[in-house]
């Protein structure tokens, strides 16, 4: 059964959290994620959920309390953005390393300084090596759908890792969007009751978590996390197929848009993928062979799927909404370029850093990228492989 509604991204995610009905939510407000927790706390207050809501004094405490609750055996969630995620950084690693299936929305926002509340992906890219699964969402619909699936992915016995659901601050979080939400019972049935394999509050099977490790064990425990990430790629696809049956919407590791016969491709995540698809359609109408690849999953990086989608193209532009200051381009550029290296197919890969601090990615900007790719295909030359889109130079 489908319910078509008009909601902002934050409202859609808050509704998802209401339907998930977690045992514990611990959170601290930060723009632009504040609304999610604010709305959720009203659900708690009005008896719409059975959740124990913990109003903590910081994001570090928010994740710490969530970790405690999850270790105790609860389905526990938090939510944050930007500086909040940065402040949480230390304990995000702990959540991942203790293999706790915590789901938390990250409403993407730039990092200080200069202080800025608008969208970019610097916050999410800060935790890309923390061991957390990262899903990205083009619009409110995907943010909602990712939330529901994230529970199943995180709690899968072959995975057991935290999952962050990313969507763009303000662009997705505060803009009204039309989407289909599932009814409460369908979600309840899909995610199922939470029965953790082990829980600290289970007095019948006592055990100890978060122990001290030396050089003789730490390496193996890190590799267990790598193996879980490897498993996650398979599990994410399985859950995506299962979710299609209840929602009619299909989700994989990547969204390959008009790439079958494409010569030129743009690789981009979150809301900008929508703009890129729009421009792609216009250029297709003019007869240009262009396409868009939108990774839905950034950690683990679905390199096999990326190679498969891009193996036939001549030139690729990777659009990064975050800087690494390596002077070697953005974070996704590194991964895409590395993925394509072994093809030895001489695919030209260029990087565009765009939209920092919420600067708009205009349709003309996307068109310029395709034009640049056209020049590269024509001449076979790349003079500068790291470029800045929309920067006053």
């Amino acid at each position, binding site marked *: 059964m489908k319910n078509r509604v008009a909601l902002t991204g934050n409202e859609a995610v808050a509704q998802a959290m209401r339907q998930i009905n977690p045992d514990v939510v611990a959170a601290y407000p930060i723009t632009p994620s504040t609304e999610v927790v604010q709305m959720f706390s009203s659900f708690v207050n009005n008896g719409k959920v059975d959740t124990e809501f913990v109003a903590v004094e910081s994001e570090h405490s928010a994740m710490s309390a969530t970790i405690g609750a999850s270790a105790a055996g609860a389905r526990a969630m938090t939510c944050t953005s930007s500086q909040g995620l940065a402040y949480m950084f230390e304990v995000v690693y702990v959540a991942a390393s203790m293999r706790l299936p915590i789901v938390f929305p990250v409403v993407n926002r730039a990092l200080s300084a200069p202080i800025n509340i608008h969208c970019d992906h610097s916050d999410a890219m800060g935790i890309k090596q923390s061991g957390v699964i990262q899903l990205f969402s083009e619009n409110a619909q995907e943010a909602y759908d990712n939330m529901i699936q994230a529970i199943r992915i995180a709690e899968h016995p072959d995975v057991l890792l935290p999952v962050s659901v990313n969507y763009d601050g303000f662009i997705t979080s505060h803009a009204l969007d039309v989407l289909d939400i599932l009814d409460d019972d369908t979600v309840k049935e899909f995610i199922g009751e939470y029965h953790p394999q082990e829980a600290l509050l289970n007095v019948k099977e006592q*055990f*100890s978590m978060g122990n001290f490790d030396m050089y003789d*064990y730490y390496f193996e*425990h890190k590799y*267990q996390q790598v*193996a879980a990430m*490897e498993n996650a790629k398979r599990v994410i696809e399985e859950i995506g197929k299962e979710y299609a049956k209840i929602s009619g919407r299909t989700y994989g590791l990547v969204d390959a848009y008009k790439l079958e016969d494409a010569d030129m491709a743009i690789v981009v995540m979150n809301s900008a993928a929508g703009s890129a698809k729009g421009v792609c359609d216009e250029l297709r109408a003019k007869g240009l062979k262009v396409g868009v690849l939108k990774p839905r999953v950034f950690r683990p990086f679905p390199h096999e799927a990326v190679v498969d989608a891009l193996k036939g193209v001549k030139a690729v532009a990777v659009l990064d909404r975050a800087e690494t200051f390596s002077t070697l381009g953005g974070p996704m550029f590194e991964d895409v370029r590395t993925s394509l290296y072994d093809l030895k197919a001489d695919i030209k890969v260029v990087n565009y850093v765009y939209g920092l601090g919420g600067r708009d990615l205009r349709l003309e900007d996307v068109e310029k990228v395709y034009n640049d790719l056209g020049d590269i295909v024509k001449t076979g030359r790349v003079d500068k492989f790291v470029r800045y889109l929309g920067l006053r130079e």
Partner: protein
Amino acid sequence: MTPFNRNFGQGRSREGISPDMNWRELTKAGNIYEPGNANTYETGDWRTIRPIWNKERCIHCLICWRYCPDASIISTDGKFDCFDYKHCKGCGICANVCPTHAIDMISEDEIDKQKEARRNEE
């Protein structure tokens, strides 16, 4: 559900863990399922100097037993019995507090050299 292609750390080792176990055999995230397992974790290889007992000088006062921070002095029937070399870290407190100087601290390198020499003689 498809079968696991890469299982990990589902083991719940009751016998304790050991450094020759691989990542699959070890418990998930280093979780510990049995209390008191510090006994199975051998820390004796941290030692660079080793206490050696001098039987003739020992008066079995057990002052060493009381002072040892790692419970590595084993006593039997109220008498000094032996050192627990699997856990003794070689701090030397026992040698320091011994009123009859019945404990000598010998370099592990020296002991290795002596062993090597003995092997060569054989």
